């Protein structure tokens, strides 16, 4: 049906959506990772109970953990492999969860359920439960519970708002899988016994709106671009004009059921193909991402693997470093040729994220001559090149972050892989595999010329690469001919830029890009997601994105005194008073905080904190108050 405009709701904020990073990237299957770690806590309720044993072979889609209680959901294996380990670990959000580690054995067997043709309502409900489908919008409420409401409902609302900045997974899904989403919605409607299906899509996705308009049984509502338009209560109000009461009231009490479009797609697959929920689309985006993508990712994939699949975190890819001494005639035309170092090196990981590269039998080449000086041996301890006879050291240390490197194998994989290729002209060293680094620290012992060969892969963001040095905190560029990598984002994959600088004085310098460093790594959207401390976490059913934000976008600011400006209350979509909550919470009076701030009705959208000019941590106060009130309530009982 032709799209109609949604109603207006008071409040909300308008953050820059920055969907341009990954909007145009089509859905893509990420190769199966070597190891997955699947948490048993995949839904809102109690964690599921593991039903597999260590050493057991599992197929893709095989049940590995059984639901425990009504709002818990089944968990399925996302790859074929062997159960390696079942252990408790701290998950990204800080809670302790039980993880089932499965090692991939390369097989592609599926353990899918039989497909259903023209299913009845009861069959669909059973199938949704058996496939372990939960709400993929974020909360992870089991869909089977949601479609068995206590009160009669007359409307199904599909949530295609995707109001979180950066995220585009639902956008791509709606574009590419329109028909499946519609079929899934029809199955849910059948299960619920409702006739009306409404889909709410934000106005910044006109292509999706156009895609859904041809379907006669779907009412398309164009929503104003605003955060949190995809909040359940807001969405129900703008699409139908109904208000959902305060908790514990559910949308079903107002006669509606809200489902995310991704959930509808999962339902369609579960019904038509018998596929369990073990993979989902997630967005990899942010200013520090090399190659923003929308990926089909298996449940329990390590964030590190996802980032690597997207060509790293936007840092520069260094192909080689060439150091030439100018002073001594002995060293004049001799280049350190790293290509020969490959076979016999060992690397150590130091505690401060630096790698030690040790090479025992490396050779030196004279310029223009491919015959190596076999009798010359250089030693390379920790990125430290030294010619034995002349005692003239060349240091370079490769620094990387925020990865945690555990063994030398990883160093080899991600840090330095040298090839046996011959020198190309003046290129003294060429790393065959890209070295993904944020910055290289180069300690120059004496005057010399350092040349770095750098490329940006399939990087779509603009970058510059140059030498710089730190004066305290200030970064000073010292290269004049800095390389502007991908100024128009169109450069081919294999372009290598040469940045060279003649250092006149000894000292420590750095080489790197200016915008590439991720300052914040987020699982989920930027408004409600969880900030990660490293990449060693695993995706959940509800993980909708992995974002690498740069300094400019994710600056952590110190709070200043509250001005009582009321800007948090003005934009609160739930019409609450966050400043009161914070005021009383800081004083330790949580009952008053809940009373005067209305905290218990809060949907934790984060709009107040976003809007606060004094940068107050309102969200923290609200969460604390909620937790304390829960404790108080527990005591009373």
């Amino acid at each position: 049906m032709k799209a109609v405009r949604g109603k207006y709701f008071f409040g909300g904020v308008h953050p820059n959506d920055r969907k341009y990073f990954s909007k145009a990237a089509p859905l893509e299957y990420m190769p199966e990772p070597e190891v997955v770690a699947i948490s048993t806590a995949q839904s809102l309720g109690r964690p599921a109970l593991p039903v597999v044993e260590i050493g057991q072979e599992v197929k893709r889609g095989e049940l590995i953990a059984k639901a425990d209680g009504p709002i818990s959901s089944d968990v399925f294996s996302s790859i074929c492999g062997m159960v390696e380990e079942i252990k408790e670990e701290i998950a990204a959000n800080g809670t302790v969860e039980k993880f089932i580690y499965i090692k991939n054995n390369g097989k592609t067997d599926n353990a899918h359920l039989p497909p259903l043709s023209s299913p009845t309502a009861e069959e669909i409900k059973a199938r949704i439960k058996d496939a372990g489908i939960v709400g993929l919008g974020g909360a992870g409420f089991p869909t089977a519970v949601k479609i068995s409401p206590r009160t009669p409902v007359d409307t199904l609302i599909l949530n295609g708002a995707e109001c979180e900045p950066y995220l585009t997974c639902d956008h791509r899904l709606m574009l590419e899988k329109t028909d499946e989403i519609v079929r899934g919605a029809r199955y849910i409607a059948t299960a619920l016994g409702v006739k009306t299906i409404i889909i709410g899509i934000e106005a910044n996705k006109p292509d999706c709106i156009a895609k859904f308009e041809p379907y006669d049984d779907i009412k398309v509502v164009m929503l104003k671009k605003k955060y949190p338009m995809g909040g359940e209560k807001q969405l129900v109000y703008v699409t139908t004009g109904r208000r959902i009461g305060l908790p514990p009231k559910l949308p079903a009490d107002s006669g509606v059921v809200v489902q995310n479009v991704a959930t509808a797609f999962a339902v369609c697959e579960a019904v038509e193909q018998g596929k369990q929920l073990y993979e989902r689309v997630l967005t990899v985006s942010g200013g520090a991402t090399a190659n923003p993508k929308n990926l089909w990712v298996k449940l329990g994939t390590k964030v590190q693997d996802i980032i690597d699949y997207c060509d790293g975190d936007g840092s520069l890819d260094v192909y080689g470093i060439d150091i030439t001494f100018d002073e001594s005639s002995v060293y004049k035309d001799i280049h350190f040729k790293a290509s020969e170092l490959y076979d016999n090196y060992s690397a150590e990981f130091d505690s401060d994220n630096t790698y030690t590269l040790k090479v025992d039998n490396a050779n030196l080449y004279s310029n223009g001559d491919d015959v190596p000086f076999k009798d010359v041996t250089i030693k390379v301890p920790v990125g430290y090149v030294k010619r034995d006879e002349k005692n003239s050291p060349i240091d370079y240390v490769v620094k990387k972050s925020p990865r945690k490197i555990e063994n030398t194998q990883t160093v080899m994989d991600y840090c330095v892989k040298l090839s046996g290729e011959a020198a190309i002209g003046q290129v003294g060293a060429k790393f065959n595999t890209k070295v993904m680094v944020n910055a290289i620290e180069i300690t120059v012992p004496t005057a010399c010329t350092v040349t770095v060969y750098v490329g940006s892969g399939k990087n779509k963001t603009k970058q510059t690469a140059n030498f710089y040095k730190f004066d305290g905190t200030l970064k000073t560029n010292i290269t004049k001919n800095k390389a502007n990598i991908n100024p128009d984002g169109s450069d081919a994959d294999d372009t290598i830029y040469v940045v060279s600088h003649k250092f006149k004085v000894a000292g420590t310098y750095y080489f790197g890009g200016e915008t590439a460093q991720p300052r914040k790594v987020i699982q989920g959207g930027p408004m409600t997601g969880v900030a990660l401390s490293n990449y060693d976490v695993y995706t959940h059913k509800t993980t909708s994105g992995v974002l690498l934000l740069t300094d400019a976008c994710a600056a952590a600011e110190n709070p200043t005194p509250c001005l009582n400006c009321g800007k948090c209350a003005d934009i609160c979509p739930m019409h609450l008073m966050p400043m009161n909550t914070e005021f009383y919470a800081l004083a330790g009076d949580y009952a008053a905080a809940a009373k005067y701030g209305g905290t218990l009705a809060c949907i934790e959208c984060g709009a107040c904190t976003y809007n606060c000019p004094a940068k107050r941590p309102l969200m923290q106060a609200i969460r604390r108050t909620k937790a304390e009130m829960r404790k108080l309530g527990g005591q009373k009982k």
Partner: protein
Amino acid sequence: MIDNTVVISTPPHVRKKRSTKGIMGDVCIALIPAAIAAMIFFWKVDLGEKVLYAQPLILLLTCVFTCVATEFVYFFIAKGGFGNKCKNAGTVCKLWWKQFDLTSVVTGMIIALILPPTAMWYEALIGSIFAIAIVKMFFGGTGKNLVNPAATARVVMFLSFSLTAYAAANIGSLIDSGEVLTGATNLSYLLKEGHVSKLSVLDLFLGTGVNGCIGETSALAILIGYIYLCVRKVIKWWQPLLFLTVFGFSAVLLSGFYFDSYKFDITLFLPHILSGGAVFAAVFMFTDYVTSPKGVIGQLVYYIAGAVLLALLRFFTGLETASFVIMIMNILVPLIDRYCIRKPFGYVKEKKQKEGK
């Protein structure tokens, strides 16, 4: 050396690029037209026996400098700048600069602009010290003051130096000395006689020939500041309008009762609004974040009650009482905030269901 660490914090991870300092900077910019108008109209003040030059500039500089200096000195002492044989002095100074958010500059500018041109610099100095040290810093600094520092300073100065300096400050009943200045106070005519004086509404709007406090006379300059504040979303556009409308109607009503036995002259609507300090107070002083209610309902109560109170006090005291009204309303704000709480979204429905049961 290279900072490779990642930041971990609670969501949201993106923030609006708007800070307290930015907002206060916007208020300073919005006050500039009024300050320029003050310079133009009161550069030369002829008191008969002597002529004062550059009074607005002197007052502005005195007030702003004193306010900032008072805040600094207070901060310096409170943070132990003198302790440990003044070894911490440098650190404390840096700390102060880091937290300096232009609020004292705004206070200083407002104090200067609500002074009459005859006010002396030392009076402004005492008022500024009082405003920052006692009204603001004693209560905890930015965001913690109970009453508007500028309005309170004005009240203190009015009571302390009333007959000498404030005779001409838009004050109706003491007006005879107003004749000393060029042009009579329009407010006095309105309040005493119930009609507009020689000045037209246009004069009042532009501020030409109007006697009064230096920043309050030109409604045009204030309007420019108001539009700027609205565009920058510092204040809500409806707040001053609501205040002035309610105030204008209350004043018309009251003057109807007071002078012409139930004859309500709507043509007095604009003169009432434009006379005295109502416009300035509505745009720059009532809208002060710290001392106005936080929620929308509270704000409605605050502006309507303030407007009615201002009209009443003006008539029954015959004085320009905006500062007093602001002080009184400020003290009521915690009470308003406590009782004017918006119901959460979706609350109404639940209530109906309860009634049904």
